[in-house]
């Protein structure tokens, strides 16, 4: 019923401008926006707490590997996990330090960055000296189901295990051969690259602060036996 002539801004007065016809859209958008902001404010502490719990559960697995972490929980032994915030590269990272008997076992860093669809939030585990990646876990993602969301699958994210943190990880479409190459997911190259970029950026920023933090802590505990090993 609205031909283009009728809806175009013309000589029929102010009500013919699109912007005035859209008053209801604008009004609803502001109203809905405000209520969503309210809901986000109310629920976000709870959501953050859920994520924190999941992170704490994942820390042993990300540092020791899945088998050792299972053995640890079977023996009912717990790792001491300290949460701290480290500022590096204009970002504040939430870092979890896992210790057994005062010795640092490793670090888990929470990082995030833009994926293909939405922000990807992930956890990177590194060893005590921040030399090697010990694990990767995807906390939150909204990538395409069936393609990009395969970044969550252990088979893909375990490729990062035991990689040196010094080098820049790249996702390649052909078979990965070099030490810094990760097989990209078919049909989800952007998601794969996004994860690599987040990991690279995080480790570049944090490698030095973490190494420093670990060596600072070594000094007071020098009198303890240094050859501590994880029982399996």
């Amino acid at each position, binding site marked *: *019923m*609205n031909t283009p002539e009728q*809806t175009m801004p013309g000589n029929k007065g102010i009500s013919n401008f699109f912007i005035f*016809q*859209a008053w*209801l*859209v604008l009004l*609803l*958008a502001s109203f*809905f926006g405000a*209520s*969503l902001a309210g*809901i*986000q404010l109310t*629920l976000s502490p*709870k*959501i953050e707490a*859920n994520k924190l719990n*999941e992170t704490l559960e994942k820390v042993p697995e990300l540092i020791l590997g899945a088998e050792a972490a299972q053995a640890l929980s079977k023996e009912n032994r717990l790792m001491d996990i300290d949460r701290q915030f480290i500022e590096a590269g204009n970002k504040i990272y939430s870092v979890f330090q896992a210790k057994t008997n005062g010795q640092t076992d490793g670090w888990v860093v929470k990082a995030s960055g833009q994926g293909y*669809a939405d922000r990807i939030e992930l956890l990177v585990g590194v060893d005590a000296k921040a030399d090697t990646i010990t694990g990767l876990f995807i906390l939150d993602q*909204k*990538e*395409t*189901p069936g393609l990009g*969301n395969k970044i969550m699958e252990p088979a893909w994210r375990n490729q990062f295990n035991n990689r040196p943190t010094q080098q820049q990880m790249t996702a390649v479409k052909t078979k990965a051969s070099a030490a810094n190459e990760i097989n990209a997911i078919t049909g989800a190259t952007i998601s794969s690259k996004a994860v690599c970029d987040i990991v690279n950026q995080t480790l570049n920023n944090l490698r030095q602060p973490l190494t420093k933090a670990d060596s600072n802590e070594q000094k007071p505990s020098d009198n303890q036996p240094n050859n501590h090993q994880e029982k399996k």
Partner: protein
Amino acid sequence: MADQPTAFERFTQGILPENPVYRQLLGLCPVLAVTNSMQGAMTMAGAVLFVLFCANVIISLIRDLLKPHLRIVIFTLTIATFVTIVDRFLAAYMYQMSKSLGPYIPLIIVNCIIICRCEVCASKQSVITAASDAIGQSLGFALALASIASVREILGTGMFFGFRVLPEMWPDWVIMVLPPGAFLTFGLLLGLVNWVVALKKAKD
């Protein structure tokens, strides 16, 4: 508009005669994607009920203010708001469920059942009719999800709502919980429904 269905007709039609999944073939993305377990399917049905009810009520309240060329924008805006509310709510109170449903909750925004009900019913009829239409259609949707999910979960894992119903020796038909199982189950059930409808028509 004397020929528009009444509130009660809208309600009953949504459940079986105009079942959104089996008779209108709408909203098939969640039907195929989240029906490998009853818990996921029922959470999805609840989310759709909430979103459809709220969207229908709001659209019906403002139906006299809608402009034809701006109505779809307003539908989408309203639907997206309530979907975001559901998404945040699940992340806060049903965290594991929200992770396993993943992007399918945000994808309710583009579920055509909801925009279809806004267009067909809520933008033309009173609030009471729109609300009962929303409940009827959601129950129809829940029924469809439940029928497919129970077949898939029982045959695929031997369990129902996470409780074992088939004996331990049941060889789990893993294909039923994988995507092909969704197509198989849905196709067979859809054929069954069509067959029953055809039989009924032949009797009349």
